[in-house]
Every structure is written in structure tokens, then in C-alpha cells.
């Protein structure tokens, strides 16, 4: 455990603790990729196995999913701006852009919840067939990650407002930035391989 602190470079990389945490988080994201890959594989295997329930082609609509995609992709951009502000040393910029990110994330979640309720009313639930079990689990796991990310980011906003930018707070924000972009990447795969393909089949 070295406590030596570098004097230059980004704050989050100045301590050994910061470097190790960021590396550990990259490895954690690798594990998350495996987790989502397994869910995607499950979805692919169970694709089309709708039994007596409504097939996805009758329920998926391009409009709402496009709005969700737009919200989440924009949030990834604003999250990048937030980290950029952090690197510039601006607490205010970080807070503002991060809050915009979270609002966009909340908008995404709102649409997703609406979408799930809508499908449920149309008779497509977790219980209705293997396909819908796989769909709700894959999309739901992503949604759960977004929810956790929002809760986590709120905790960090409070911390940075109280403590300002230190190697520790900036490391925490850098890490949640990685997490947020990762969720975006996963969503792109869900958008294409679940919704786009689901609409045309």
C-alpha cells in the first residue's frame, strides 16, 4: 500500500489506489460483458419460442425505442462532458453535466417502464413464454443496471459537492463514467439485436 501521490496527470490516476481501482473496475466490466453475453446468448436461443403469446413483431414499435436510444446515447455524451469538466477542475461543470446525464437516464427508465407495462397489458409477460422470459430478463437487467447507476451517481454528487475534487472523488466519478458508457454500449446491442431484429421477424 503505497501512499505516494503523483503531482501531475489526471487526479484519479495520481495515487496507486486510484490506478488499481480503475484497473479493477475495467476487469469488473469484462465480467459484466460475460454476464450480458450470456443473457444475449440465452435470448438468441429462445428467440421465436413464444408459444401461445404475442410475437414480438406485433408489439415492438420503432418510435419509443428510438426515443430511448436517443436519450441514452445523449446521456453518454453528457457524461463524457461531465468527466471533461472534472479534468478541467470544474466542480460546477461536473455537477451540472452529471445531473443532465441522470435526467436523461431517468427519462430512459421512464420509457422503459412504460414499455414493459404496455407489453404486460398486451399479454406478454415474464411468465407467458420462454421468449418473453428472455426478453424481460435481458432488457430488465440492463434497466436495473441503469437504475443502480443513477442511485450510485446521486451518492457521488453529494460527495463531490461536500468534498470537492480530490484523487478519491475524481476516481469515483471516473469509474462511474466508465460504467455509464458501458451501459450505453450494451444498449446499442439490445437496440439492434433485440428490437430491430424483433420488429422485422
Amino acid at each position, binding site marked *: 500500500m503505497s501512499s505516494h501521490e503523483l503531482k501531475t496527470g489526471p487526479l484519479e490516476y495520481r495515487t496507486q489506489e486510484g490506478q488499481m481501482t480503475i484497473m479493477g473496475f475495467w476487469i469488473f466490466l469484462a465480467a459484466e460483458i*460475460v454476464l450480458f453475453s*450470456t443473457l444475449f446468448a440465452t435470448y438468441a436461443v429462445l428467440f421465436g419460442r413464444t408459444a401461445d403469446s404475442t410475437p414480438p413483431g406485433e408489439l415492438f414499435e420503432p418510435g419509443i425505442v428510438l426515443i430511448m436510444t436517443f436519450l441514452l446515447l445523449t446521456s453518454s455524451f453528457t457524461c463524457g462532458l461531465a468527466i471533461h469538466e472534472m479534468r478541467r477542475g470544474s466542480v460546477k461543470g461536473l455537477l451540472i453535466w452529471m445531473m443532465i446525464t441522470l435526467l436523461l437516464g431517468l427519462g430512459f427508465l421512464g420509457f422503459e417502464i412504460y414499455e414493459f407495462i404496455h407489453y404486460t397489458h398486451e399479454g406478454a409477460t415474464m411468465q407467458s413464454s420462454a421468449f418473453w422470459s428472455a426478453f424481460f*430478463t435481458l432488457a430488465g437487467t440492463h434497466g436495473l443496471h441503469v437504475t443502480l447507476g443513477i442511485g450510485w451517481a446521486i451518492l457521488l454528487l453529494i460527495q463531490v459537492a461536500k468534498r470537492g475534487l480530490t484523487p478519491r472523488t475524481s476516481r469515483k466519478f471516473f469509474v462511474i463514467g466508465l460504467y455509464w458508457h458501458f451501459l450505453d454500449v450494451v444498449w446499442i446491442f439490445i437496440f439492434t439485436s433485440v428490437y430491430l431484429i424483433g420488429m422485422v421477424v
Partner: protein
Amino acid sequence: MQLDEFFVTGEPLIYAGMVSIALVSAAILFILTYFKKWGWLWREWLTTVDHKKIGVMYILSALAMLFRGGADALMMRTQLAFPNMNFLNAQHYDEIFTTHGTVMIIFMAMPFLIGLMNVVVPLQIGARDVAFPYLNALSFWSFLFGAMLFNISFVIGGSPDAGWTSYTPLAGAAMSPGPGQNFYLMGLQLSGIGTLATGINFMVTILKMRAPGMKMFQMPIFTWSTLITSFIIVFAFPILTVALALMTLDRVFGAQFFTLTGEGMPMMWANLFWMWGHPEVYIVILPAFGIFSEVIATFARKQLFGYKAMVWAIILIAGLSFLVWVHHFFTMGAGAFVNSVFSISTMLIAVPTGVKIFNWLGTLYKSRINNTVAMMWSLAFIPSFVIGGVTGVMLGMASADYQFHNSYFLVAHFHYVLIAGTVFACFSGLVFWYPKMFGHKLNERLGKWSFWFFVIGFHVCFFPQYFAGLDGMPRRVFTIIPEWMPLNIISSVGAFGMGIGFAIFVFTVVYSYRYSEREKTGDSWDDGRTLEWATPTPVPFYNFATVPHINSMDAYVKLKEEGKTTFDEDKLEPIHMPSNTGQPFIMMAFLFVASFGVVFEWMWMAIAGLIAGVVMMVIRSFDYDEGFHVEIDEIKRTERSTRGL
């Protein structure tokens, strides 16, 4: 739910289990209270983040689990010794073989090895702790609470009975109603969190915290095997997480993944399970290979033969381990082409494994062998494991597997690799590093008795099972026909021989605690090659007063030649260490409550436990504890007293 549904009733053996649990718990509570040890337990153990203490707790828990899984095994061998035995009924037998398998793999083999990694790896690379000490404590408590959740199933609610592989549709809600199977799902899920965290922790530790100058290809081989194992953990465990979660959704929330209704696909479980399960067997064998390499090099008093080939063999095995999972169910009917591909990839694994066998033989060749107990376990491993490996290649031939599948031939094969590989390594490593952990050696004479009973018992137990399998005895039967009796009697005798060996081992621990000479130097075996032996015994909590610059393999051999130590008074600096914390214990206790709620489908309890667990995570997020510094005076005092200066 009535009380008699909550507790398991009607089985004398289980009543005996309940009584002994109650007595042992009461005795522990009494001793802790009478000797006023509660504070000590909390301060020294429950809140510790010291990798050495966490390692010791892992190993002690794993030994307890070895006892439990061993007791299961002896009950099974008693039931199978004679035709038409009435010792266990079919249901009870099914529960016991399920818990035996699960406990041995998940709660014995892995924690035992992770315990040794915890104790040894930071010492081998010259680090003062792991990269994330808090997370390390979290890993341990998640394992322990997961293990406890799984183990209470036999007195509360009923044990799972669908085999450790839990194949669907048998393990689904329709055919296995009740909490039993849920215990399996939640117990593994809870402990799986910790395993994944351990994988991440050791990868970062090894990649970022090596002593200055130590290159990757100068790392001790056990550290290498830990690094590669961590890779496998990180890429395999999320698959298990998903598989368990999907089955939980099926059973508790009515989803249709593995069901026969709603176009579910029961065969997908077998795929998901073994996509994790096969890498898992390498998670428990690669560290074992690492241990044998260290022990053999030390007691052959030579540098490990073919170090680089050994490392590449480990890496190749790890890669191949992800490409062979279908060989566990060739008979499921994937078709000739798929079976051929997986048959070939399976047999390919024999190549790097064979390389390693020759590495060990090459190390032993023309060496002056110091025949200690640790070395004997390692020497016994080589031929025994080869028998397991060769029969593994036989099983890997898809067409031949149609004959061997589901027979005792398979049972004999995997016990040959898992016991001769993993269990021998656990004993070998424990005996080898015991003085580093506890400050005294295990009695060698008693150790040899325990070794011979265990190893001979092992071969007597499992060798006949190959032939029982070839005679057509299927696995997972609770009673045998007269034709199989002679082989089964021999096998049961062997099993009790192993039981005696284990009992002698436990006695050795107690005996050595009282009578063994206390260690005076850090280099207990005089031939230590790697950095852990450079530390004094008992190891100071900060491990290294000063970390030497490393520029060769077998770093401690070089240090000894140069007359250097890890206590260079001119270079002392205050050492930064992490603070103890009770948070991991409390967080995992809450998640235990949540998991228990899911097992019984009491959602109020699950949600309450989960909320409490999340609150603990929030508290952690706001915790800016910076740890503390060990001052130079204290380091000097500690080093002088432990080094006898």
C-alpha cells in the same frame, strides 16, 4: 407454513444432526462468553482485512466443509456397501449426493485454494496486502454466509436433491417443489459474488503490486497459477450468476427458461451450467498445480524445470477450458459433428497437462529429495493424477463416452482428478505453508500416518469404481445389486480409510499446536525459494518492513546468496495500512437474510434484507477512511523481536 414443514422431521440421522448443531453452537457460545472472547473475536477476526487472517479463516471453513462433505461420502459408501441396505432411503440418498458434490466443489475445494492464495500470494510478490483489502473481507463473508445458507438446508426446509449439476427439468419448480433447490440457487449465488470479487482482486494485486523489479516471468509459479485462475474466475463466474438467476426466476417468479411449458428449453441449463462448470474444474486444479510446483521445487532443492513451458501450459489449459463444455453431455444428442469438435478440444487439454507432468519429473530428476509430508503429498499426486487424466481422455472420446456415461467409471475418473489433484494439493500446501500461518510445523510423524491412510484409502476406494462402472453400475443409484457387491465393499473400506486419514490429520493439528517446536526463523524448511520465506515468522501484519528489489526468479534464493533481508534499517519508511472494518460482515449478514427470504419465497424478508444490504453499500460509499500509518519505531521493534536481533 407449519413448523414441521420448516424443520425437517422424521429422520433419525437428521435429528442427530440437529442435536449436534445445537450442542456445538451452545458450546461455542459458552466458551466465548466464559473466556470473555467476544471482543477478541470481533476485533481480531470478524472485522479483519488482513489477507493472512482472511486466508486462515477460509482454510478453517474449508476444513469444516471437508468434514461435512466427507461425512456425506461415508454415509453414501455405507449405504452402497451391500445390496438392499436400509441405512438411507432413496430421498435421503439423493439429498446427500447432491450436497456432497456441491459442498466439496463450491464450499471446500475453492475456498481452500483461495485461502492458500490469500495467505501466500501477497507474500510471494512482496506486497503488503491485496489490492482491495475491504473487498477481500467481503469475499470471505459472502462465501461463509453462502456456505451457511446451503448447509442449514438439511435441518431447515430440506436439502436440494437434484444433483450438484441440478439439471432441469428435474430441478425446476414442477418436479422439485419446495425450498430445497432454492437453497442451492441462493447459496451458490451469494458465495459467487465473493468468488468473482476474489478473481478481480487477485488479478489487480498480481498485475500492479509486485515488488519493484519483479517481471511477470520472474513470478513464483503459484502466483502465476493464481493469476490465470483469476482470469478464469472473471470470465466463467458471470455465466453461473446468470444461470442461477434464470433458474431462480423460473422457480420463484414463474419464468419459462428451462421449463417444459411455454417452449422453455431444459437442455439450455446443461449448456450454461457446464460453460461455467468446466472452467470451474480448472479453477480448482490450476492453483493445485501451482502448489505442487512450489513444493516439488523446494524439496527437490532445484529450480523448477521448464518454468516458461509450465507458465504457457497453464495459459493454454485456461484457454482450452472454455472450449470443452459439451463433453459433459455427449449423450444429449448434439450430433456427430459437434461431438467430434468437443472431443478433439477435450483431448487437446491432455497435451499441456502432459507438459506439466514432465516438468515435475524433470525437476525431480537427479535431485536430492527431502522427503517431508508436504513433498509426499506432491509425489503421490503425480501417478494418481495420471490415472485420472488417462481415463479422462478415454471419456473424452465421444463414441466411447456413450458406454462410460453416467456410470461409476466417470465417478472414479473425476474423483481421481479432484482428490489426487485438488485435495492432495490442499494438504500439501497446508502442510508446506503451515509454519508461515501458525508459527509451528505440523508433526511429521503423525502427518505420514495421515498421508498413508488417506492415499491408500483413496486408491482402495476409487480404483474399484472404474471396474464397477465397466460392470454397468450407474452413478446416482441408492442401492446396488449383488453382482456389484465385492467391488463396492472394497470401495467402502477405502472410503473409511480416507476418513481415518482425515481424523489423524485433525489430531495432528491439535497435537502440533501443543507440542511442536515454535519457529525461530522465517525460512522454515531451510530451502525456501520464494519471497514468503524471507519474512519473519510470525509474519508481521505489514508483511515486509522493506521490499527488496527483485531481478531474478526464486527471489529468496538470490537474497540468501547476497545476505540480504526484508529488513533494511536504512530504508525504513512509515507503512500505510488499511483499517479494520465490520462492514463486510454486516453487509453479507443482511444479504444472507435476503437470500433466506428468497429460499422460502417470503418476499417481505427478501426485500427487507436487500434494502439493509444496500444501506450498507451506501454507508461504504460515504466512508472515506484513509487507513493508518505504521511508524518506523514500531516497525523496528516488531522486526527486532520477530527476527531475534
